[in-house]
């Protein structure tokens, strides 16, 4: 498997074309940018040129949202397009989700949950093996935000991810907002989850904002909306994780109700400050 370098152990942001001019004019742009793979699967045009400009000033992470790793069979065309994209832009990192999004040819454009059983573990591992082999690189797998659980689940999510990482050699992408959202939705303690998480395999962290609602029976319901700043609880959990693991590449995701560039840049600086504090300690 080819070596592709690493994301820096600093803060990055999800790239939005609306911020492009301010990013290239910035004195200190973020250390890396992450883009959704599916937005860059056209043959040409300005979006690829923007990506080349960004990659000239910062590291690049390609984040897939449509491979359906937990689905029935991987879409070979989609996988080939991912391989082409990675070949073309040589990102430092490729990541996807522990989720499914396709069934019998329909694509649902959402990260859907899967039960954690021996059978789904085998399938996810087979799909990651296939992906890493076609892309000729390691990938990272991200823990999902979920709203339902499955009666048939026989493994915890953290054990499931630990087994996937050890069997396939993939790294993990720890989304701390997803942990917080799941903890509220499924009434568990986020710190217990993080204590059980296979931190040795974590190579990137995601931070994002979520929406807080009550469902119709009055139970708290958090939705992973990526449409606002990271909440204080998640910042606290993040600082605790970094204190334990040391600095990790950390991405601010903000995909909806996209803010002005300085707002997003400030979120990244806040993560960077936590990372630097830990770097100084070391």
């Amino acid at each position, binding site marked *: 498997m080819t070596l592709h370098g690493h994301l820096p152990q600093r803060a990055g942001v999800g790239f939005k074309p609306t911020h492009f001019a301010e990013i290239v004019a910035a004195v200190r742009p973020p250390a890396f940018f992450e883009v959704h793979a599916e937005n860059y*699967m056209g043959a*040409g045009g300005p979006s690829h040129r923007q990506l080349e400009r960004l990659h000239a000033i910062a590291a690049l992470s390609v984040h897939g949202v449509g491979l359906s790793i937990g689905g029935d069979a991987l879409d070979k065309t989609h996988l080939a397009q991912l391989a082409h994209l990675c070949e073309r832009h040589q990102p430092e990192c490729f990541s996807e989700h522990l989720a499914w999004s396709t069934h019998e040819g329909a*694509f649902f*454009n959402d990260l859907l949950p899967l039960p954690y059983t021996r059978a789904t573990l085998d399938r996810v591992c087979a799909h990651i093996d296939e992906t890493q082999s076609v892309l000729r690189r390691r990938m990272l797998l991200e823990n999902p935000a979920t*709203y339902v659980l*499955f009666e048939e689940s026989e493994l915890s999510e953290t054990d499931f991810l630990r087994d996937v990482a050890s069997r396939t050699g993939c790294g993990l992408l720890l989304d701390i907002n997803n942990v917080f959202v799941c903890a509220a939705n499924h009434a568990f303690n986020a710190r217990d989850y993080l204590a059980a998480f296979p931190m040795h395999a974590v190579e990137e962290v995601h931070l994002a904002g979520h929406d807080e609602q009550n469902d119709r029976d009055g139970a708290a319901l958090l939705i992973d909306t990526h449409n606002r700043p990271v909440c204080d609880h998640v910042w606290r959990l993040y600082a605790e994780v970094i204190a334990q693991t040391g600095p990790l590449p950390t991405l601010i995701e903000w995909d909806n109700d996209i803010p002005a560039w300085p707002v997003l840049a400030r979120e990244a600086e806040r993560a960077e400050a936590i990372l630097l504090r830990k770097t100084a300690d070391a």
Partner: protein
Amino acid sequence: MRDRAAFAHALLDAHAPTPQGLRASKGASIDARFAVYRNNVVSGLIDALEDSFPATLRIVGPDFFRAMAQVFVQNAPPRRAVLRAFAHGFPAFMDSFPPAQEIAYLADVARIEAARIEAFHAADCDEDAEAWARAMSGDLSSARIALHPSARLVRSHHPIVTIWRMNARDGVIAPVENWTAEHALVYRDANDAIHVEQAPNGAATILSGLRNGETLGDAAGQAIDSASESDLTGVILLLMRTRATILAETGAKAR
């Protein structure tokens, strides 16, 4: 998963029961939790169509648009994770959607919007000014010419370019003074701007002919045969402006 099919089906059908085998924490409603996925999927895809078809949205209004998009999402969900192909199918759906048929030009205006998205992501192509210069000094009528990969032609019986422009961002809506058929030529320029131009009738015929592999001369002949006036110099300038490429110069030698 024991029943992924039921889960998948219930995502798109609001009347389908919540799938079996799901669990929610104490005090939470499984139906309400499953509804989050249903809403993410259906609303998310409708939002994506709204973003792709702003002029169509403005013509019919948000209530009509979202109702129409919802039927499309439920009847013909995306087949691929790249949503451009899904958006590409929306105008054809409008042709077959009875409430939209009352607005005869709607689907063709939507075709302009779909073409703009495709033009944005289309392949790049190096310009070859020298080939043009050589062809101009030879016999251009025997040249085969490839349109730029971004170029799209939308033919219509309605004044779709005028209507699209009025309903595009910052467009001012006014009565259409001259209700005649308009064909739209959509392309990306060297600065990556996407243009929508009205292609004169003869030009549209010539562009279609070139796309089918005809020489410029044969394509222009078709335009004359189709009994519409065509301004060949105007078409050549249009081809150069839209960054068409000379494929084969049989030139003077071929004659």
